[in-house]
C-alpha cells in the first residue's frame, strides 16, 4: 500500500516538475512532510520562480499560487488522460504574461489529440484558441449561443477592454 502510494507520488511529481518548468519558468516539486510515513503525511507544493527562493505554495502571491496549483492539476490529469478537458475560468488570478503561457500550454496539449473546452474572459487565452463560442443573455435570462470563428472579430468586439 505504501509502495503503490510511492509509485503514484513519483509519477505525479515527475509530471509536476516538467509542467511547472514550462508554465512558470522555474523549478517546482512535491514535498511530503513526513517521507518515512507517507500515509500520515501532509503534501505541499514547493516552487522557486526564477530568481526567487524556494517557497511553499502558502507563501506565494495570488497569481503564483494559481499557476502552481494549475501545474499540479495538469500533473494529476496526465496520470489519467481523458478525451476531453473542460476548464472553467482557471486563469482568473493570472497576469497577461501568465495567461499567455497557460494558453500556449493548452495549444500544445490540444495538438496531441486532446480536446480542450476552456471558459475564459481573458484575451490572451481567446486569441490562442482555434475558435470561440460566444454566450450571451437574452432578456429574461435566456442563454443564447453563437459561434465566433474569426479570432480578430472576437478580439476587436466587446472583448477589447482589458489589461493584463
Amino acid at each position, binding site marked *: 500500500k505504501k509502495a503503490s502510494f510511492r509509485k503514484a507520488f513519483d509519477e505525479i511529481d515527475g509530471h509536476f516538475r516538467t509542467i511547472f518548468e514550462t508554465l512558470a519558468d522555474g523549478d517546482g516539486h512535491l514535498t511530503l512532510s513526513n517521507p518515512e510515513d507517507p500515509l500520515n503525511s501532509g503534501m505541499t507544493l514547493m516552487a522557486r520562480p526564477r530568481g526567487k527562493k524556494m517557497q511553499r505554495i502558502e507563501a506565494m502571491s495570488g497569481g503564483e499560487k494559481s499557476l502552481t496549483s494549475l501545474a499540479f492539476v495538469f500533473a494529476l490529469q496526465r496520470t*489519467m488522460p481523458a478525451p476531453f478537458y473542460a476548464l472553467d475560468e*482557471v486563469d482568473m488570478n493570472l497576469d497577461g504574461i501568465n495567461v499567455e503561457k497557460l494558453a500556449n500550454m493548452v495549444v500544445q496539449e490540444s495538438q496531441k489529440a486532446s480536446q480542450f473546452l476552456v471558459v475564459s474572459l481573458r484575451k490572451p487565452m481567446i486569441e490562442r484558441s482555434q475558435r470561440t463560442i460566444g454566450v450571451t443573455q437574452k432578456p429574461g435570462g*435566456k442563454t443564447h*449561443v453563437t459561434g465566433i470563428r474569426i479570432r480578430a472579430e472576437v478580439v476587436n468586439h466587446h472583448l477589447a477592454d482589458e489589461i493584463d
Partner: protein
Amino acid sequence: MHICEIVIDNFKSFSGKTVIPFEKGFTTISGPNGSGKSNIIDSILFCLGLSTSRTMRAEKLTDLINHHSQRKSCEVTITFQRDEHEAALPVGFLGDRVEGASDSDPLTEGTTLQVTRKIKVTSSGPQSQYLMNGRSSTLTEIHDVLGRYHVSPGSFNVMMQGDVQGFVNMSPMERRKIIDEIA
C-alpha cells in the same frame, strides 16, 4: 474521441432546445457574467453523471429545469465522435446489445457514442433517465464505458469555476489524500 455535439434542452438558463457543435482541438467559450458559460460545463457534468446537484449549484435536481418555460422536464445529449487513429469506440462494451445490432447499424462500427440524460417532474417526485446510443441504460453502465476513458466522477478532466482556488487553499493532508485515491 472528442465531443462533437451537445444538445441542451430546457436545462438551467437554456429555455428551449440549443444545439452546440464542437470540434477537436482548442475551443474557448466566452461572454458576460451570468450568460450561461458555466451552465454549459454543468450540462456535461449532468449528462455524464459526473456530479451531484450541489456541484451544479442546484439545491435539488428539479432546480435544473429551466424556470421560465412551463415544461416539467429537461434533457442533455452529448455525442462523442471517434478520431481516425482510434480503435472502435467502446460500444462493444455494451455486450450483447452490440451483438444484437444489425450489421448495417452504424454504431456497430463504433464511430459515435451518444449519452442522454433526462429528468422529469412527476407526481411521485423527480425521475431521472439515462440513454446510451438511444437505449435505456443505467448510470453504472455509462460509468463503465466512460471510465475506460478516465471520464468519471473522480477524474480531474473537468475543472469547475473556483476549483483552482480550492486546490490553492487545500490543507497538506487533503492534498496528500488526492494521491492516495490515485494510488
